[in-house]
C-alpha cells in the first residue's frame, strides 16, 4: 500500500513517514497541497492514504481535501488530517469537506496507529 505524507515541516514528514513505513506503506512526501496534487497527477497509482497538515503555504490541507474530493480519480483515497487545528469547528469543516479522520498534533505513534487501524488500514493490534 502507498501513503502520501503532506506537511510543510520536513521533520513532521519524517515522523509520519517512519510510522507508515513501519506499517508497510510505501511513503511519498509533499511539502504542501499544491505539490501533493502535482505528484498525484504524475502517479500511475493513487495512494490509499494521505496524511495531511492543515496550515501550509501555497495550498493548505483543507483546500487539498476539497480538490481531492472533486476529482473522481482520487475518490478512493483515505484522507486523514494531521494538524494543530483542534477546534471543534475546524474538525467539522475538514470532515464535511471529505476528510475521513482527524489527528491532532502532538500525537504519539500509538495514537496514530490506532486511528489508522480504526480506518481499516492496518491490522488491529499493530500497535501492541
Amino acid at each position: 500500500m502507498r501513503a502520501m505524507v503532506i506537511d510543510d515541516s520536513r521533520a513532521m514528514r519524517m515522523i509520519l513517514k517512519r510510522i507508515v513505513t513501519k506499517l508497510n506503506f510505501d511513503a511519498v512526501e509533499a511539502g504542501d497541497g499544491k505539490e501533493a496534487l502535482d505528484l498525484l497527477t504524475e502517479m500511475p497509482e493513487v495512494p490509499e492514504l494521505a496524511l495531511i497538515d492543515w496550515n501550509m503555504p501555497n495550498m493548505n490541507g483543507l483546500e487539498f481535501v476539497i480538490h481531492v474530493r472533486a476529482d473522481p480519480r482520487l475518490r478512493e483515497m483515505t484522507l486523514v488530517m494531521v494538524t494543530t487545528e483542534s477546534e471543534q469547528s475546524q474538525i467539522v469543516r475538514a470532515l464535511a469537506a471529505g476528510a475521513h479522520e482527524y489527528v491532532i498534533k502532538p500525537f504519539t505513534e500509538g495514537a496514530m496507529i490506532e486511528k489508522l487501524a480504526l480506518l481499516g488500514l492496518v491490522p488491529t493490534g499493530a500497535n501492541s
Partner: protein
Amino acid sequence: MSVEVEVNEDDLAEMVGQVWESYLDPEGINPLIPTYDENQPSEVHSSVSISGSWTGHLVYASSISAARRAAAAFLAMEPEEVSEDDMSDVLGELANIVGGNVKAMLPPGAFLSLPQVVLAPESSARYPNTERIGGVYGLWEDEPVSISMWHSRAEKSEEESA
C-alpha cells in the same frame, strides 16, 4: 473585539508536556525540568502569531544545543548530524504545535500564522506593543528551553477598560 485570554501557565505546561511525550522524550527519561526563570538565556527562537479574537505570539526559545537535540529527536538522527535547516524546521514546528493548541483554547475566530524562525536569542526579538503574560521555563538535559505567550497591550487595555 477583545477577549480575555483563557490559557494559563498550567495549560501551557500541559501542552508542552504532551510535546515532550510525543516527540522529544517519548520514553519519559529526559523531561523539561522547570526553572521558573523567565530570564533564562536563549540562542535561537521561533514564534507563531495569533490574530483575530485574541492577538499575540507564542514563542519557543532555547540554546542551540537544545534545538539541535530537538531536531535530532524529530529526525531520528544524531545531534552532530543536524543541519541549520533541520534546526529551523523543527523550531518552527514546535512553535506551530504549541501555538495551535493555544489557539484551540481561545474563543472562536483566532487565526494562526505560519511559524517564523530566527537563529538568534529571543532577547533580540521585537514584538511591538506586547507583554509577556506567561510561560514555561525549564532545562532539558541541562540546556535552557522556554515557551512563552505574549499578548497585545492594546487589546489588554481594551479588556481592562471594558
